[in-house]
C-alpha cells in the first residue's frame, strides 16, 4: 500500500484543480505525458525571470549561473539513474531523438550487411522506425522478439533471436500499451554474451520505477523529461562513457566543436559533442526540479503506489461485461498502464464519452501499430497512472464506461 500523502501531492499540481466539461479532471493519460507540479513550473519561470542566458560561453554572471544550473541537472540525472558520472548524460529533445542519435552516431559506424538488430513486437514506433531507417542504410537486418498470450516477451524467442549476428538489442523496459516490465538485466546478459550492445527504451520505466543503469548493465538508455513531471522538449540519452567517446557526432554546429576551420573541425568533449546548438536551457533547469520532486517521493514508493492503482483498476475493470484487458496479470511483471477493449464499443467512442465525464484516457494505436496487429485489434483504450492519481478517481472511470455501455450496446442488432 501507498505511504504517500496523496492530498499533499495533489495540492502541488495546479492543473488538478480544473474541471473538464463541468466535472473534476481525472487525468489517466500519464503514459502520454504527465502533469507538472508547482515546483517545476516555478523553476521554469525562475529561470526566465532571473538567470536566462546562453550557456558555456558567456563571461557574465547570468551565463555562469545558467551554465551551473544546466550542468547541475546533468549531475542530477546521472544520480537518478545510477550513472557513473555526468559525462554519460546527453540532453536531447525527447526519447525519440535519443534513439535516433544512437542509430546515427553509433549505428552507421558499427553496423553492416548481415548484422542483426533485435527488437520486439511491443516496441513504440520511436524504438522501431529509427532502426528500420538504419537497416535500410546499412543492410543490417531487423529481427523481432514475439510476445506470449499475456503480453510478455516469449522466453524462447529471446534466446533464439539474440544470436552471434546480433550487434544491437533495442528493447523497451516497460511497454506503453501492455504495461509489461521486461527482464532487462537478463536480456543484457544474453546480448553481451553474443558481443551485442543493449539499448533500453526507458520512456515508461524511468518515470515509474527505480532504474539503475549499472545494475541493468545496459549500454544505452533513452527517456523523456515530460513523462516524469518535467517540461516537454527535454530528452536524455545515457550511454557508457567509452561508447560516447568512440561515436561520431550526430548533429553539427555550435557547442559541439572545439576548433573550426573552413574545411574541417574538431569535436568538443563528451557529452557536449552531442549537444549541437543552443540547448533547451530553461526546460533542462526545470527538469532538475522534477527530479528533486521524484527523489523526495522515492521511486520505490512511486512504483508501489502505481502497482496498487493498477491492481485495483484491473480488478474493477474486469467486472465490466465484455471487457478484454491486455498485458500481464502479476504485479512484478507490469506497471501502471492498463489497456483494454470493450465489446461493441470502439476506444474512440469510449474516449469521447469518458472525456465528458472529465476522465482523460488515451484511445488509439499508442504509436505501436505492429503490436496492435499482433493483438489483432485496431486500437485500445488505455488508462495510465502517476503519483497524483488516487483510488477514488477510478469511480469516474468506471461510471464513464458504464455510460458508454448504455449508449452503444445494442439490445439486439438486426443487420440488413
Amino acid at each position, binding site marked *: 500500500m501507498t505511504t504517500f500523502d496523496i492530498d499533499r501531492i495533489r495540492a502541488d499540481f495546479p492543473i488538478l484543480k480544473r474541471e473538464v*466539461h463541468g466535472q473534476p479532471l481525472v487525468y489517466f493519460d500519464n503514459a502520454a505525458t504527465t502533469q507538472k507540479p508547482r515546483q517545476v513550473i516555478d523553476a521554469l519561470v525562475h529561470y526566465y525571470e532571473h538567470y536566462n542566458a546562453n550557456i558555456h560561453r558567456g563571461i557574465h554572471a547570468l551565463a555562469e549561473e545558467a551554465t551551473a544550473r544546466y550542468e547541475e541537472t546533468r549531475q542530477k540525472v546521472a544520480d537518478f539513474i545510477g550513472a557513473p558520472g555526468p559525462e554519460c548524460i546527453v540532453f536531447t529533445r525527447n526519447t525519440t531523438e535519443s534513439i535516433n542519435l544512437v542509430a546515427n552516431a553509433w549505428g552507421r559506424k558499427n553496423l553492416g550487411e548481415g548484422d542483426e538488430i533485435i527488437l520486439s513486437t511491443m516496441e513504440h514506433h520511436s524504438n522501431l522506425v529509427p532502426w528500420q531507417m538504419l537497416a535500410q542504410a546499412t543492410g543490417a537486418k531487423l529481427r523481432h522478439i514475439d510476445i506470449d498470450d499475456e503480453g510478455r516477451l516469449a522466453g524462447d524467442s529471446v534466446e533464439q533471436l539474440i544470436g552471434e549476428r546480433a550487434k544491437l538489442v533495442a528493447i523497451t523496459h516497460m511497454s506503453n500499451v501492455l504495461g509489461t516490465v521486461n527482464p532487462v538485466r537478463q536480456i543484457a546478459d544474453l546480448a553481451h554474451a553474443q558481443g551485442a550492445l543493449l539499448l533500453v527504451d526507458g520512456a515508461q520505466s524511468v518515470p515509474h520505477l527505480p532504474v539503475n543503469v549499472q545494475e541493468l548493465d545496459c549500454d544505452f538508455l533513452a527517456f523523456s523529461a515530460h513523462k516524469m513531471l518535467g517540461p516537454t522538449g527535454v530528452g536524455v540519452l545515457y550511454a557508457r562513457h567509452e561508447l560516447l567517446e568512440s561515436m561520431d557526432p550526430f548533429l553539427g554546429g555550435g557547442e559541439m566543436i572545439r576548433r573550426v576551420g573552413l574545411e574541417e573541425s574538431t569535436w568538443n568533449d563528451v557529452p557536449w559533442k552531442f549537444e549541437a546548438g543552443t540547448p533547451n536551457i530553461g526546460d533542462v533547469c526545470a527538469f532538475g526540479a522534477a527530479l528533486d520532486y521524484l527523489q523526495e517521493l522515492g521511486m520505490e514508493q512511486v512504483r508501489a503506489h502505481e502497482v496498487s492503482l493498477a491492481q485495483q483498476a484491473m480488478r474493477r475493470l474486469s467486472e465490466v461485461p465484455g471487457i478484454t484487458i491486455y498485458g500481464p496479470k502479476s504485479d512484478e511483471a507490469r506497471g501502471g498502464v492498463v489497456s483494454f477493449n470493450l465489446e461493441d464499443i470502439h476506444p474512440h*467512442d469510449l474516449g469521447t464519452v469518458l472525456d465528458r465525464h472529465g476522465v482523460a484516457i488515451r484511445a488509439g494505436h499508442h504509436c505501436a501499430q505492429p503490436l496492435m496487429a499482433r493483438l489483432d485489434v485496431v486500437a485500445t483504450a488505455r488508462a495510465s497512472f502517476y503519483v497524483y492519481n488516487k483510488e477514488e478517481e477510478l469511480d*469516474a472511470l468506471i461510471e464513464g464506461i458504464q455510460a458508454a455501455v448504455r*449508449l452503444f450496446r445494442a439490445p439486439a442488432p438486426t443487420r440488413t
Partner: protein
Amino acid sequence: MPQPQPEPEFDELYREIILDHYRSPRHHQPLANAQVVAEGYNPLCGDEVELQLNFENGAISDVSVQGRGCSISQASGSLLGDIVLGKPTDEARRLIGLVTNMLTDAEAEPPEELGDLEALQGVAKFPARVKCATLAWHTLEDGLKQREAAGADRPIVTRHDE
C-alpha cells in the same frame, strides 16, 4: 462524484440515427464481382471502411459498405450507402461535396436534401472526430475518381488513407 449533466453538444454527436446505423449497419452484404472496391483507412485511429460498387447507365446500381472502427466512421459509411444507391456518379460527387462541407464547417446549415445525414452535423464541433466521419466519403470520392481515370471497363481496387 456528481452525475454528469447531459450536454447538448454531446447529444448532437451521438444522435439516435447514428447509434442505429452503428448497431445495425445497412448495405452490409458483400457484392460478388464488384466493379469498384474502394478501401479507406485512417492510420491515426485504425478505422477501416470498404465500399464495393457496381454501376449501370452511369449510376451506382449496387453498393456494399463494410469495415471496422468507431461508431461515427461506421454510421457515416452506412448512411453513405443509403443516399448514393441509385444516384448518377455526378450526383454522388455533388453529395460528397455537400456532406464533407457539413462535416468540416460547424456553422454550415445542412441542405434539406441530405435527409438523415443531417444527424452527422454535430461532428463538426468535435475536431478529433471529423476524420472518422469523412473517411467513407473520401474513400468514395477516390474510388469514383480512379474509376473514371481507368476507363470504367475493368474492375479496380482503390486505397485511400484519410
